[in-house]
């Protein structure tokens, strides 16, 4: 018998979209404590819309958003969405993670600064606390934004395309960091990526999202990496192989379902 674990947050039969127009319907998605879920799909496929709906930042067109109890959330936006022209230091950016928890009348105190120091140390950017955010490298900015999310001491960490535009080494380093956070603190992670390969070696569950196909499918990683499931997402055969202990995902010639192979 498996014990029922109450989700941190869940969408039930949700219709998701903007201005009353549903892009995706019948979305069921539950995020349990300690989950590592990656939402994968093409650019503009509605992945970000799903996480905004999950966080309550976007009203549902239909269905229900369930939050059994208040949950501390950390959010990492696409770093291209954060304007580097603002003259903040990395430490000031990280401190912003504490603001929603403070409310309008309290100012950050020693406990908040300690939380920020810990968060910056966890992601290895504590030495950059006084450096201008706009002058950091892409990878350092990404780590600073993750530190800001961790400064909120979250139970659920949500990241939107955290490895977008990174070279392979930086992408690996970022994903290794997320893996470490997930293993170390039992943090639930929900991340968005348009690159299946970036998450195929880390996530425990995958959700395929493509509003153009009206597709929303979620399941455990092993099941989702099957050729039929991948074929449904990409509309052509996709193979998954293991090379030096890592999963590699690549398209092959033919029609969907013909050549998909799994290691």
């Amino acid at each position, binding site marked *: 018998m498996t014990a029922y674990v109450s989700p941190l947050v869940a969408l039930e039969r949700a219709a998701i979209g903007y201005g009353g127009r549903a892009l995706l319907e019948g979305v069921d998605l539950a995020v349990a404590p300690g989950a590592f879920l990656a939402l994968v799909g093409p650019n503009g496929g509605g992945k970000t819309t799903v996480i905004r709906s999950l966080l309550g930042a976007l009203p549902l067109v239909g269905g229900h958003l369930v939050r059994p109890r208040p949950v501390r959330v950390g959010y990492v936006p696409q770093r291209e969405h954060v304007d580097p022209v603002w003259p903040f230091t990395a430490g000031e*950016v990280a401190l*912003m993670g504490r603001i*929603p928890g403070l409310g309008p009348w309290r100012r950050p105190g020693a406990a908040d600064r300690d939380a920020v120091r810990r968060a910056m140390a966890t992601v290895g950017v504590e030495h950059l606390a006084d450096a201008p955010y706009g002058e950091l490298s892409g990878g350092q900015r990404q780590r600073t934004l993750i530190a800001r999310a961790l400064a909120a001491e979250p139970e659920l960490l949500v990241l939107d395309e955290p490895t977008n535009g990174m070279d392979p080494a930086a992408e690996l380093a970022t994903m290794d960091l997320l893996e470490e956070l997930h293993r170390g603190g039992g943090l639930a992670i929900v991340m968005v990526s348009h690159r299946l390969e970036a998450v195929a070696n880390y996530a425990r569950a995958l959700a395929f999202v493509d509003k153009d196909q009206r597709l929303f499918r979620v399941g455990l990683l092993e099941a989702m990496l099957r050729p039929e499931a991948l074929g449904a997402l990409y509309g052509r055969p996709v193979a998954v192989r293991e090379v030096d202990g890592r999963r590699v995902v690549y398209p092959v010639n033919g029609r969907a379902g013909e050549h998909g192979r799994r290691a």
Partner: protein
Amino acid sequence: MNGLDAVPAGKLAEFLAAREIWEIPLAASILSGALLGVLGVYVVLRRTVFVSAALTQLSTLGLVATLLVEERVHIETEHASEQLAVAILFSVAGALLLGAFRPRRLPAEAGVGAAWVVASAAVVLGVSQLVHAAHDLGGMVFGNAVAVPAGDLAVIAVVAVVCVAVHALFAKELAFVSFDPETALSLGMPVRRWDALLFLTIGLAIPVTARALGALPVFAFLTLPAAAALAGGARFRVAFAIAGVIGVLSAAAGYVLSWVWEIPTGATMVAIAALFVGAGALVRRRGR
């Protein structure tokens, strides 16, 4: 006029002797420069410089609309408080619409540009229909800051206190939602409400200062002092102080120099504020 290459001693003495004439206008200019300089940090960093241009035009339109109504219903005396109230109404409504709403289907610049050009055209059309007050248009648009009633100075002071209090009390929220609205929204912060509060302060400051200085210097003070501070490499919090000081210095020096050189006041203030932008860029360059 003895040229712009020197400050004539006689003119300076004349200026100092005429204290009762310039006391209130100078105080209003300085206070306006400080207030607009501080608010300008958000205007520049949020890339909403042209929102402030549109709001100054909307504020002027409010003034012209009131003058028109007063003329059409044969109101002989000018009602300064009604004019100001309508200008505030136009500016605040414009600020909330242009600043706080982030349209999804249209680039924000399209709305701002439309508001600016429509308001500008409406001001020209409105003034063309004015019989008595048309001569005031130059002062309204380019500013003169020569005759400022004590009541206007009091209004500027009250608005300045309110704006500074709002920005001091809610500094961290206004900074966060302006810097990263997506994250703030995802973490449950009411971004639209904070945006509305920020643009409410800007929408309030513009008409009360535009009445004293004119639209052009107001637009300039919302842009140049902050641009100078940021060009000089000031950090976020320090930028407010530096922009405020630059606003004060530009307003004061512009006022005095325009008097002694007998040149337009608003344009002189703008020219001096522009010099600070160059100075800021030089400071940054030397610091590297």
